[in-house]
């Protein structure tokens, strides 16, 4: 039924898909590079009264290690204007006060959906100094294209 070349082709196709799976699995479970999947629940209408979001901001939690507690709301990030020294690892803890937003930092792999009712977490090490553009990448309303801030790495 099948030509030899087709068998080879399908074998290679199958092998490629399995290859993708193995690499993805290794990175996710051995190197902890999995996609942001944190799932703690929060009352989306009481974000301001719920810890840690009652006190959003940046906090040093170790040598070269920072924690940013951030809320996203139409059409801004709180806190805005974050500054960290080069070489810092920054843990972002995020939630939304209204609709679905996206947290993306250009020129990094920071990219996470921020959904009301859920706490999202994502981490990035900033090696190179510069000004990084933070933007919302999920359409959230009339001012969506304005929803941005910066992270300055010195």
């Amino acid at each position, binding site marked *: 039924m099948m030509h030899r070349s087709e068998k080879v082709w399908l074998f290679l196709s199958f092998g490629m898909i399995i290859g993708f799976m193995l690499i*993805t699995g290794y990175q996710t479970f051995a190197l902890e590079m999995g996609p942001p999947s944190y799932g703690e629940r929060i009352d989306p209408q009481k974000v301001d009264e719920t810890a840690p979001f009652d006190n959003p901001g940046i906090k040093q939690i170790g040598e070269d290690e920072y924690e940013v507690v951030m809320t996203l709301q139409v059409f801004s990030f709180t806190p805005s204007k974050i500054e960290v020294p080069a070489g810092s690892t920054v843990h972002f803890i995020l939630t939304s006060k209204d609709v679905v937003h996206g947290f993306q930092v*250009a020129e990094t792999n920071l990219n996470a959906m921020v*959904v009301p009712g859920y706490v999202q977490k994502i981490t990035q090490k900033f090696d190179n100094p510069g*000004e990084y553009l933070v933007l919302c990448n999920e359409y959230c309303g009339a001012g*969506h294209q304005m929803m941005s801030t*910066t992270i300055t790495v010195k």
Partner: protein
Amino acid sequence: METIMNKSGKTQVIREKVNKVLGISLEDARLTKSYLSVAFLAILLGGLLGLLQGLNRAGLLELPVWLNYYQVLTAHGLLLVVVLSAFFTIGYFYAGLSHTLGGLLPKVRKMAWIGFWMKIFGFVLAVIPILMNEASVMYTFYPPMAASPIFYIGLVFIVLGVWMCAFGAFINVASWRKRNPGQHIPILSFFATGVFVLLFFGSLPVAIEVFTIIPWAFGWVETINVMVARTLFWAFGHTLVNIWYLTAVSAWYVIVPKIIGGRRWNDLLTRIVVIALVIMNITGGFHHQIIDPGISEPVKYMHVFMSLAIGFPSLMTAYAMFAVFERTARRKGGKGLVGWYKKLPWGDVRFLAPFIAMAAFIPAGAGGIVQSTNQLNQVVHNTMWIVGHFHLTLGMSVVMTFFGISYWLVPYVSKRVLTPQINKLGVIQTIIWTIGMVIMSGAMHWVGLLGSPRRTSYSTYFDNATALSWDPYLFFLAIGGTLLMIGVLIQVYAVFYLMFFAPKGNTEFPVAEVEEDAAPTPRWTERWGLWIVCMIVLVGMAYVIPLVDFIVNAPPGSPPYKTW
């Protein structure tokens, strides 16, 4: 009793023969013409709106307050992803059912008309609030953004209209099977069955979603479960794009071999591809939620496997298509390792357009596999890369196949012929479209990798240097978009010329035969009940864990927001 059965069986055989010789009945033709007319008007309007977006993203055009970027984008998505896809798919497959099953049953034709008007009614209901800026929620309408309830009621009618057509197709196929015991469903109707099974099961989740949204949008219910809605949406959203794809694939397997004067690929393998795409499709929706909160990493890993598995039948298709091309070209005297390509009818738009469509699926499918992989998805999620991806898959692989189909299907249903002039125009259109889409989609992929977000009107983010560096790439969106608009105009002209003005004559419905020495296809391929059970089992594996978790461990819900 037996003689009566025999008699009606014979009349049916005669009817089928008449249908083959005389072509489609006027009533069946009118149905398909109406569906195709709506499809191509949708592409005219949707294309124009697309151009406006391209010009805006390039920084060349500021859209007025009364027709802002997000209204335009919502309408563009709805027109092209819902209206064009549904109307073309149904128009094409109903002509296919009519041709291969000996005409549509009167009852089925009536159902397709009811479905037609329900969809039109639903679409008008959905568009009014968009134009009034009461529904700038995109075609994904993620809660807790809440549009006017009228928008969602419109969507309900569109879904019900689609279901009418799906059930009509099932009735027609079932009736044929009863009349032809022991026979295989003709291949094009086999594809149609798969597509309508997916249309029905794929739109079930979005129907459930919309039914939970409507009371909330009216204010009868205070809050909504955001993640459940989002998950139900993507169970539908991704299936929908694969329905288009399966429609295009049907033409690749069944129509294109006939147009190049060849025979079609192994019947069993073709049917296996259809069955595999039907069973594995719906679970692919989860790759839209790879960076969502609330789904654990192991579950996401399982979803990656389910998404990548869809790649396998596509890779089978890639082999099959090029094998058919080579075999046909060699029979015509083609020589050499690749020299046989000269024997293919490059000047025939009915071949050229779907060929380029298939070729585009090589990078498009590769991009799809890459971006469905967890960590790589994080790099490109919601960036312009994704927009580039689906303009390559849908805008090229699918839509160019639809264009190629239109050059024989429209003359077939209007009892006219494709003239050499229109064929030439079609070749020019194909080239313009290819260049336009390669420029636009290429720029989108690249600028997306650099970080430019999708679904965002032109913005420098307060003159941010990174954002400004994207501008040169975004300029190509305007160039590509302009070329595509020219392509749309030519295509729509060609369709309506072929429908109403081309010379009268008989056009064949090109269905390729299997090879003469082909082995018979085993009977088990016809067990649709089993395939549907397999599909439901797979959907259960993918969805039960996350959905139960989102419902049982739900956070307090969200009230409706109008943020535009």
